[in-house]
């Protein structure tokens, strides 16, 4: 339980927030649930945008005026009631999602809740973060303004240099050899399809946790939405220029949350981009492993002869580390608790849940605890 400056910062912030908002509404206690709520905002606002979006770069309906991705976005913005606001909410909720995920990540990191029995959560979290970043980028392609064109070309240049599979990758990304009508439908598919695969990745993220906290209290949701709506008002959607395949846009505004990789790509070139991306991802994935595993977890142990198979420990275990198996032949009971050591955190909740003394932490037997209690209770009179 050593504290360094970083954990201290978190402890002080936490304490301060507890004083302001009480622990029931402390956002730091819902850092994992907030991204989940933002995801619902994104799904809903995205659905409304999807209803009017036309994923082509050509004139879709041979109408008098050009109807393509860009003009459909302009139509949403200018003609659909609250279209501009919904677009802005969708964009800023995406930014908020990245911010919330980063807060979540930093907090679990500095409060030491990411390694050993939690490695699956950390690694799947990295995958989720990368997915969210990529989904956000594809969102920027869809608008089909000058920035989208530049982003698409930069992505193609980065994909093409990948050895061996570079060209197939590019063809997959553009849905053909060059930018065409099919390109945008592929972008739309990636954007939406990947969004729904977030649910699958989230399942893996949660699978080792009993009762994951996924709903923040409504008051926190409201405040989060206040922040998003306020940002919409103070930084409204602005007009952009339609993409022109014959032009060569060279600069753009950078959304720091999603488009940072493109800034890296612009600065380092394609090779430097891939090397830095791979290094960053590998570093993130390796965080739970090296040198930090000071002492291995000593997992709880079931005393088979005492276990009655009541499954209280199974219900209470926060890491799904206990499994109820059929009791061996000759037992008076139907079930027997067994511990999966690789999932066990050694927290002792199961010891507290057992009324039969049948489960123990090897490094702190509950008989020892009882002995100490007894000794302390008597020490004054002795």
């Amino acid at each position, binding site marked *: 339980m050593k504290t360094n400056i970083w954990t201290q910062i978190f402890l002080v912030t936490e304490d301060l927030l507890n004083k302001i*908002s*009480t*622990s*029931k*509404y402390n956002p730091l206690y819902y850092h994992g649930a907030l991204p989940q709520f933002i995801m619902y905002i994104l799904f809903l606002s995205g659905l409304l945008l999807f209803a009017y979006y036309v994923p082509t770069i050509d004139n879709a309906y041979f109408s008098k005026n050009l109807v393509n991705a860009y003009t459909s976005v302009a139509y949403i*913005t*200018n003609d659909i*009631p*609250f*279209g*501009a*606001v919904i677009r*802005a*909410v969708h964009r800023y909720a995406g930014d908020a999602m990245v911010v919330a995920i980063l807060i979540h990540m930093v907090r679990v990191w500095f409060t030491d809740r990411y390694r050993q029995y939690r490695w699956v959560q950390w690694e799947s979290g990295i995958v989720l973060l990368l997915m969210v970043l990529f989904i956000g980028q594809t969102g920027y392609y869809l608008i089909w303004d000058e920035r989208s064109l530049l982003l698409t070309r930069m992505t193609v240049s980065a994909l093409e240099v990948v050895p061996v599979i570079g060209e197939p990758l590019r063809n997959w990304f553009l849905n053909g050899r060059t930018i065409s009508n099919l390109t945008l439908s592929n972008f739309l598919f990636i954007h939406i399809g990947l969004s729904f695969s977030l649910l699958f990745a989230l399942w893996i993220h949660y699978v080792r946790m009993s009762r994951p906290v996924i709903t923040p*209290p*409504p*008051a*926190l949701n*409201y*405040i989060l*939405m*206040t*922040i*998003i*709506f*306020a940002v*919409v*008002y*103070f*930084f*409204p*959607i*602005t*007009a952009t220029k339609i993409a022109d395949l014959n032009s060569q846009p060279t600069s753009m505004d950078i959304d720091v949350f999603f488009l940072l990789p493109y800034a890296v790509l612009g600065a380092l070139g394609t090779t430097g981009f891939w090397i830095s991306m791979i290094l960053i991802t590998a570093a993130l994935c390796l965080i739970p492993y090296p040198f930090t595993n000071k002492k291995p977890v000593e997992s709880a142990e079931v005393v088979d002869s005492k276990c009655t198979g009541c499954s209280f420990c199974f219900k209470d275990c926060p890491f799904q580390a206990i499994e109820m198996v059929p009791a061996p032949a000759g037992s008076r009971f139907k079930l027997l608790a067994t511990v999966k050591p690789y999932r066990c955190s050694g927290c002792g909740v199961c010891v507290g849940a057992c009324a039969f003394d049948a489960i123990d932490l090897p490094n702190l037997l509950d008989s020892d605890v009882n002995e100490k209690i007894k000794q302390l209770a008597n020490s004054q009179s002795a």
Partner: protein
Amino acid sequence: MAAAIGLCLWASAMMPWAELDMNVDNLPHTFKLLHIEPVGKALGEIYGGSADKHKTHLESQKAEGKKGEYVYSLAIGLALLGAAIAIAAIGSADDEEKMTLPEKK
């Protein structure tokens, strides 16, 4: 607490005004059908003063789309904030750092 509920109500009433694009001169037919034109006019009187401020801000930001909708967004945000503070004020009453056990009968 009272201030939070006040903010919520004040911002909620601002929402229809913003939805009318901050202009109550030509109220839509719904107002006539429901005979609530005076309400519309009253909204204009309460909030009308700030219309120019909102417009200058949004124009300086080159906002696309109807300006009133962004103001609506601000209003709903404020209403939610008021609601959140009020809910949290009520809900935090059962927050506990100290817990005594109820007596068993």
